[in-house]
């Protein structure tokens, strides 16, 4: 038997022009989340509780695309989704279309622990959230200035745009315009690789 181990991520597909201060901000958040998980593991918390604890922290911080700071739909709203799985017994829970629950990963955990199902979505999931008494917030709690700007860019480009957390629009468009990479047969500039 080995010891404990932990890994976290904040999304793949990063703008090569990411400003240094943004890079440092991201690294600081990842380090904080790692340390949160490490101290939980040192207190012998089970793996399933540690992953929920760490993802809640990442959802609450607006830096990455989840929870507060989520990418916006074409209507400028937030629709979040999350899942959680316990390798011990292979139990799992998932939610989609969440608009008012502060920590979607904890709702996914409740689907796993307190419902007969593995996956609840949209109004059913929000109904379940109310029954379970999880912390709710109005949709605008999840919306950040950065993302309103990014959505504007995406609409001007009539595309689903990169979601790099970068305020420098020209570099993002530049990257989008230059890049010859295809995704699903479409130019990468059409997608936001999260």
């Amino acid at each position, binding site marked *: 038997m080995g010891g404990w181990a*932990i890994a976290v991520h904040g*999304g793949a597909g990063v703008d090569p022009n990411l400003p240094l201060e943004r890079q440092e901000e991201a690294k600081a958040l990842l380090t904080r989340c790692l340390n949160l998980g490490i101290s939980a593991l040192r207190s012998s918390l*089970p793996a399933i509780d540690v992953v929920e604890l760490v993802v809640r922290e990442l959802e609450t911080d607006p830096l990455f695309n989840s929870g507060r700071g989520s990418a916006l*739909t074409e209507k400028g709203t937030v629709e979040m989704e999350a*899942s959680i799985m316990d390798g011990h017994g292979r139990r799992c829970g998932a939610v989609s279309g969440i608009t008012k629950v502060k920590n979607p990963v904890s709702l996914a955990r409740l689907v796993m622990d307190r419902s007969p199902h593995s996956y609840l979505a949209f109004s059913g999931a929000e109904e379940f959230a109310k029954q379970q008494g999880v912390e709710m917030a109005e949709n605008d709690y999840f919306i950040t200035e950065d993302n309103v700007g990014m959505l504007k860019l995406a609409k001007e480009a009539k595309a689903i745009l990169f979601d790099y957390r970068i305020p420098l629009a020209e570099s993002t468009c530049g990257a989008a315009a230059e890049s010859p990479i295809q995704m699903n047969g479409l130019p990468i500039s059409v997608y936001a690789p999260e």
Partner: protein
Amino acid sequence: TVGCVVVDTQGRCAAATSTGGLMNKMTGRIGDSPIIGAGTYASELCGVSCTGEGEAILRSTLARDVAAVMEYKGLGLQEAVDFVVKKRLDEGQAGLIAVSNKGEVAYGFNCNGMFRGCATEDGFMEVGIWE
């Protein structure tokens, strides 16, 4: 998208993923993150969380495939991660993090950078963005 994978001192693995999806997405769009076996998977052997181009991750059932090649091809954790990132994504772009019940940690990505951090009980700790 954000994610976390953990193996605890009892050797139990777990995984969790959470996201807002794609900027300017259609309302009602569901990506890979909530789909067990695609964006998130955990078994007795390992825990996996993915991020990137949701449609490619869904088609390749990326997270489950890491566990499957460990189970059926006997690959180690990093080998399994490298294999699925290289062989399963076709032209899709994605990244993933993984832990094994032996206390190992691994990650892989075929796109431009991935925000990630990892640590093990023997003192290893790394936080990075680029290759």
